């Protein structure tokens, strides 16, 4: 029988479109990590003593830790002394306006389709652009400030709003949380900070664009979003990196805090360089993302589309502390060539009548390995907790793998937790049906896979949904003979 799988097997000679690097004048500290490097990073950023102390506590704890290896991904040893922990495009002193942003940098963002000029393509979306480790431009600042929303680089927030940063930094992801979060706490260089004051509905989408540009750098950004009582915000995150033969480490931390009645929607389209067809190079994307529904009736939603990185390892979770709070996780993860992903979520139900929803769609192609790992935990206090989890995996090619590792821990008899999962290969009947109507096999695969992911895509803001569909199709190119 000449199954479709034969044709599908020849998989993904993926064309990574963002693989250029830009020749920017970069300010770097020497490779390697020790207390002096941390002091140097902190000094370069003119940080207050409390923050330097916090970094050093994290560093001293980190050196006592061992790198974890329980995750279902495989990679060679990481030499933490061979990484540049601080690389920043040298800025002109004091930018008066966006027009003064380095033209090379502006060209780079134009290539990425991310416009820093406020009137262009993404108008209506405020963008904070981060290259290597440092925020280079934030748009729409004034318009946001008019309603009291603070959206700036983390470094600026430390300088200008320490009273807002200090109580929340590490309040959701403590510096002792895990190996990579601890490392990040010690060496993080920049990131975005958002603060939406009480009762404010953020008038536009906030967006951060991350870009690793310099060679041998790690990117350790830290994002903190605080939504006060009744506030509402939608935040988008996109990422790309140049093609390089060696692996680059990306160990970010994202903390979200939602007070009573607040809503935070956090969307990610992750398209870091995935490595070449033989699995050389690519980003190690080891990220800790967590939100805390601290107040009653609050809501945090994570939506992620993960198509890039050699290895993706992250579990954006929600601590459902406030009564009636809601946590959501919608995920599409595509692994092609030799990519590996171990991703999922953690929903910790503490408050009464807390609800969580998990929808995970995994696509494995070529030699791609895709693992869903999720924890749903309801504590004894979580009366009336509800969870529904739906995990589907689609396999394209007999060398691909799909793995599902849910952990469900229930301690309250009124809790209701349901988990459903399925794994199958792409349906030959669906493919034949599409082809009989004149659609090429490649387009049919792309169409069926996009349909499979639709439940997640519809959670994304419009521009991101279009971008996500396009990324998925590009990643699937060459999947059929």
């Amino acid at each position, binding site marked *: *029988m*000449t*199954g*479709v799988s034969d044709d599908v097997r020849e998989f993904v000679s993926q064309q990574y479109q963002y693989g250029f690097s830009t020749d920017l004048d970069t300010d770097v500290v020497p490779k390697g990590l020790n207390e002096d490097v941390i002091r140097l990073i902190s000094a370069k950023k003119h940080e207050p003593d409390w923050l330097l102390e916090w970094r050093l506590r994290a560093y001293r704890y980190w050196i006592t830790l061992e790198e974890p290896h329980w995750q279902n991904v495989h990679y060679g040893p990481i030499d933490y002394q061979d990484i540049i922990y601080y690389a920043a495009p040298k800025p002109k002193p004091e930018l008066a306006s966006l027009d003064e942003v380095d033209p090379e940098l502006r060209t780079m963002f134009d290539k990425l389709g991310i416009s820093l000029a406020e009137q262009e393509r993404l108008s209506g979306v405020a963008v904070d652009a981060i290259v290597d480790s440092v925020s280079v431009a934030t748009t729409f600042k004034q318009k946001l400030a008019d309603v009291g929303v603070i959206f700036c680089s983390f470094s600026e927030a430390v300088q200008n709003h320490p009273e807002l940063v200090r109580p929340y930094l590490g309040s959701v992801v403590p510096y002792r949380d895990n190996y990579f979060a601890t490392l990040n706490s010690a060496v993080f260089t920049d990131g975005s900070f958002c603060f939406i004051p009480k009762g404010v509905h953020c008038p536009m989408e906030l967006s951060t664009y991350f870009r690793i540009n310099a060679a041998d750098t790690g990117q350790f950004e830290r994002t903190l979003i605080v939504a006060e009582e009744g506030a509402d915000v939608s935040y988008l995150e996109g990422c790309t990196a140049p093609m390089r033969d060696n692996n680059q480490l990306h160990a970010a931390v994202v903390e979200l805090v939602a007070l009573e009645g607040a809503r935070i929607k956090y969307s990610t389209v992750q398209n870091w360089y995935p490595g070449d067809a033989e699995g050389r190079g690519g980003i190690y994307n080891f990220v800790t993302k967590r939100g805390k529904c601290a107040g009653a009736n609050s809501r945090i939603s994570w939506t992620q589309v993960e198509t890039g990185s050699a290895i993706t390892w992250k579990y954006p979770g929600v601590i459902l502390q406030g009564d009636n709070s809601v946590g959501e996780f919608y995920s599409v993860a595509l692994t092609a060539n030799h990519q590996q992903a171990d991703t999922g979520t953690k929903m910790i139900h503490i408050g009464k009548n807390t609800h969580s929803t998990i929808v995970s769609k995994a696509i494995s192609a070529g030699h791609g390995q895709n693992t869903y790992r999720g924890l749903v935990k309801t504590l004894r206090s979580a009366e009336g907790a509800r969870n529904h989890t739906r995990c589907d995996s689609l396999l394209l090619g007999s060398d691909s793998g799909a793995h599902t590792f849910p952990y469900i821990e229930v301690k309250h008899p009124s809790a209701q937790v349901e988990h459903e999962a399925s794994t199958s290969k792409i*349906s*030959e*009947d*669906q493919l*034949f*049906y*599409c*082809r*009989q*109507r*004149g*659609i*090429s*096999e490649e*387009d049919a695969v792309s*169409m*069926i896979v*996009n*349909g*499979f*992911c*639709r*439940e997640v895509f519809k959670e994304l803001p419009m521009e991101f949904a279009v971008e996500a569909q396009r990324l998925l199709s590009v990643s699937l190119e060459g999947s059929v003979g």
Partner: protein
Amino acid sequence: MMLQIENLHAQIGENEILRGVNLEVAAGEVHAIMGPNGSGKSTLANVLAGHEAYDITGTVLFEGEDLLALSPEDRAAAGVFLAFQHPVEIPGVGNLYFLRTALNSVRRQRGLGELDVMGFLALARERMKLVEMDESFMSRSVNEDFSGGEKKRNEILQMTVLEPKLAILDETDSGLDIDALRIVAGGVNALRGPDRALVVITHHQRLLDYIVPDQVHVMAGGRIVRSGDKHLALELEAHGYADLGQEVASDRSASVGATP
């Protein structure tokens, strides 16, 4: 001759399903194929559409070209359309989006320009009226949660939009009530013309009251065992397949023997 099938054999593994089918269909003609379950009717339809599950020998010429050498999508572009007996559901793929992608793929292959959204919508709306389909169908996923009758009407809608030269209807009438049957037949008849041909596979004579065939063939045991005009269908309706004589009976048992 539009379609020429000569000594067509098809098997899956050791199981031979088609055992030498011969059939000629000229442009403008309607052919009905009838026959008991397991006689190979649906297999014939699938083989003509390019299903890859079968090992095939024999020749099939479509407008003089070797049809068997073409991929399913190239056959669609050449003008072969199969209305499936069991249309598959494709979750998450919008019906309208699917149809427009299909039409534009086919148009590209035929050297016609792609239709833009407005042009396509105008066409789709017009054809939807023909099969009395509500616009709400278009935003739903392809066939997902459609009733049996809705799926069949969707097949006919696709056919009227794609405008094939040769349409093969695989038991499109089964499971339809009399109103749905009338609608489906209306859609099919609207497509009839001197340049087009139809092959209608059915169990029931009643469809042939609406779509009147030029020729009726009876399949049994993987072959066409009898051909005649439309009166043959009435005869079958009255007497069943058992009266077709020794030939059918022996072929059927042979067929059963090949399918343990």
